[in-house]
Structures are given as C-alpha cells and as structure tokens.
C-alpha cells in the first residue's frame, strides 16, 4: 500500500538535508506519494548556480563528505524524476530572499504556502528536518 509522506526541510545542515533526501528518494522509489516543503535555511541550496556545501553538524556529517555518498541534491532530484516526488519551495522564504521560482533549480515545483501544503498533507505522515 502506498502512503503519503510529507517532509518539511528547515535546517541547512548536511545531516538533516541528507536524511530528508534519503527518505524522499527511497519513499518515492517504492511508490509513495512524496511532497517536500523547502523552507528556512534549506531553501538557499536550491537556488540555481549556488554550489555552497552544507556544513556538517557533527561526526557523521564529516564522514558523509567522502566519495560514494550520494549528494542530497542528487537524491532529491532522483526522488522527483524517478518517483514523482514534489519539491515545493516555501513562498514566504522566496519572498524573504527576494527571488522568484525561475531562480530555483528546474526540479523545484511551484511556490507553495503553508495553508496549501498542510491541506495537501492531510491524512499523511509529516516528517520535519
């Protein structure tokens, strides 16, 4: 049975973005309906042309910088491409950053407000990172 998984990304640290991306990609791969809401410090990583590395919070984040760990952006992209996951930028965060949807990576979906996100999330699981 497929389920509905809603992920809220708030933190800009490597571990949290990685865990969120892992869950999004694996859930999307098994056919779950996945929506990822990108807000606060998680959103700037999805601005086109930005290549800043997410800082590690601790030991595992440092270990994750090694070769062979799929980067979180690649996992989010695969979640969208292979499993139809929706990657939704928070409209408030876009306003604060004074940028439009066109300045975000192409796999990012339409700007979404909380009301819409919460109403779509109804009945599913909600995970926050």
């Amino acid at each position, binding site marked *: 049975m497929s389920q509905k998984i809603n992920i809220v990304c708030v933190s800009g640290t490597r571990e949290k973005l990685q865990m969120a991306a*892992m869950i999004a*990609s*694996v859930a999307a*791969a*098994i*056919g779950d309906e996945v929506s990822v809401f990108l807000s606060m410090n998680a959103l700037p990583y999805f601005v086109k042309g930005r290549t800043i590395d997410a800082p590690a919070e601790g030991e595992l984040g440092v270990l994750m910088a090694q*070769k*062979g*760990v*799929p980067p979180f952006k690649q*996992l989010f992209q*695969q979640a969208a491409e*292979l499993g139809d996951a929706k990657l939704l930028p928070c409209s408030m965060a876009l306003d604060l950053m004074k940028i439009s949807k066109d300045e975000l990576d192409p796999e990012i979906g339409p700007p979404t407000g909380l009301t819409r996100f919460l109403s779509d999330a109804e009945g599913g699981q909600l995970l926050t990172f």
Partner: protein
Amino acid sequence: MSESKIIDARDTFCPGPLMELITHMKQANVGDTLELLSTDEGSGADVPEWVHKVGHEIVSNEKVEGVWHIKIRKAK
C-alpha cells in the same frame, strides 16, 4: 530478446545502489535481467525489499568476497 546487464554500484553508500538500480530499471525492457553489484551492507536486504514491493523478481542474491551480487528480472 531480453538482455542482461551489470550495474556496478560498488563503493557507494545507501541509497546510492538502489537509486542506480532504479535508474537502469526504468530504461530496461520487461524480461531483462539486471545484476547489481554493491558493497553497501544494507543492500542485501533492502534491494530485495524494493524489488518485491514494486513487483519485479529476484533471480539470485549472494555475497561474494564482500560484494553483494543481486540479480533482478524486470517483470512489468
């Protein structure tokens, strides 16, 4: 004519091997066999879990000298 293909995902960490398999699975034809090579310890249990969940078929699954060899037939 069904094909057989090896996907070498050694030295990538979870969920890298699964994602590589899925990418190739999308491009494969029904009846094709894909053999995934993975050094990620969780792959031996996790990949078959995905295969069963989405309805493909495990042909064989064994660990040889630290490398998982998982053969999957695309069933749909």
